[in-house]
């Protein structure tokens, strides 16, 4: 398995997109912190980048990579290699290169400018979201053989997680305004890793006090050690479930 991971990572490194992505994140992070005197404000600006750009790049790059390595997969499947470990190696290679890019591009500036709980939370959430969207991309690429369709599915999923989901939540909130929805909101936030990441980061910032009653409840729930552990477990489930389904599909796939 290690050998295959090595070949996957070597292949990704040969691709200049990864270097471009790292530099892009680095430039954004450095300029955000350079322009804002208050690192807390910088974190807020960077938050939107992390929650929108990082899932987008992770899911699209991973999907395209899986389709482009069809030949590599086909070649190795006829060799004495377990399909499961081939698939896990591709996942590990992709996730670790994307995480490295994020760590260099966003993590290091964060550690320099905001070396406190906020910075660490943001770094952790960024890495988790990267891994989650890589797993989702692998699942999406298992639905169809057609590359264009596969990329389309990935973009739709990204759209859902970053925009449509929030729209649905707002809609529900307005429809059921008269009912106490605070507890339900916590459950809803579990259904979207991007929202979960946003809440966990915002709670570390002081501005969360501005967000009203729901925020107080969130603070109660996620602020406690127990809530934090539950949130991280949910994030882990967001990695494990898509990955598990994609492994199952890949094991049965005809090549």
């Amino acid at each position, binding site marked *: 398995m290690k*050998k*295959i991971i090595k*070949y996957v990572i070597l*292949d990704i490194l*040969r691709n200049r997109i990864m270097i471009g992505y790292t530099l892009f994140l680095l430039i954004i992070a450095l300029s955000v912190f350079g322009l804002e005197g208050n690192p807390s404000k910088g974190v807020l600006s960077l938050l939107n980048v992390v929650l929108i750009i990082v899932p987008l790049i992770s899911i699209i790059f991973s999907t395209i990579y899986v389709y482009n*390595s*069809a*030949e*590599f997969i*086909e*070649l*190795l*499947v*006829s*060799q*004495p*290699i*377990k*399909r499961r470990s081939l698939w896990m190696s591709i996942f590990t290679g992709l996730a670790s290169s994307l995480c490295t890019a994020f760590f260099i591009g966003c993590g290091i500036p964060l550690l320099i400018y905001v070396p406190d709980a906020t910075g660490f939370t943001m770094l952790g959430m960024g890495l988790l979201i990267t891994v989650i969207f890589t797993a989702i991309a692998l699942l999406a690429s298992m639905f169809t053989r057609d590359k264009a369709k596969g990329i389309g599915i990935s973009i739709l999923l990204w759209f859902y997680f970053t925009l449509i989901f929030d729209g649905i939540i707002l809609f529900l909130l307005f429809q059921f305004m008269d009912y106490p929805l605070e507890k339900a909101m916590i459950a809803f936030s579990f259904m979207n890793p991007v929202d979960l990441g946003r809440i966990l980061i915002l709670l570390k910032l002081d501005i969360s006090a501005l967000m009203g009653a729901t925020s107080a409840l969130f603070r109660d729930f996620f602020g406690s050690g127990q809530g934090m552990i539950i949130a991280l477990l949910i994030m882990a489930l967001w990695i494990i479930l898509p990955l598990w389904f994609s492994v199952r599909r890949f094991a*049965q*796939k*005809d*090549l």
Partner: protein
Amino acid sequence: MIIATSVTKKFGRLTALENVSVTCNKGQSIALIGPNGSGKTTFIKCLLGMVVPDSGFITFNQQNIIHDWKYRSHIGYMPQVGRYPENMTIAQVLDMMKDIRREQKAALDEELIEAFQLGKIMNKRMRTLSGGTRQKVSAAIAFLFNPDMLILDEPTAGLDPLSTEILKEKIRKEKHKGKLILITSHILSDLDDIITEVMYMQDGQLRFHKSLEQLKEDTGEKGLSRAIASIMKANAQ
């Protein structure tokens, strides 16, 4: 050595394989013959575990291949259309294969690499290779690890006459070492002096599996091509 028992595979409405049962033993060299789209390649891919049958099972040395992946280290496979990572060079592909299959300590068989003179073009990228050169790389990889079983899907398609002769000579040599060889080809004259058994497939079904002598006797023809032609004609009517 390899036993398939009522293997069935459907792609949507199309039945690619229907109830195929075959026994192949060490030392045999078998020609898998049939019209286009008769399920030859699908059957080979089932043997390799690249296609998962809907029903039926395949055993390799008494081990069901569905739960096993190590058996593939005993097989050398030459695909019909070799697809390789486009931006890797020949040397990198060969090194990768050696790296991945290194657990078996058996000596490498680099005879074909030399015979095809691949050494000169080792640093060419796969995407720049012609169809015939790709076939040579596929053949070199199939024979590289000295496997007990060789599965060759249209090995001579796209090769020039000289390379075809080199490859045939190599197949003959491996046959004499007592390896199990499974070949599909439409160029029957290539097979005539290599094979000992014939499997004939049509519409996803295995029509017959018998020795070459038996086949010649049954059809009353001398050559393999004529024997098969007479069968195809009989089937078409």
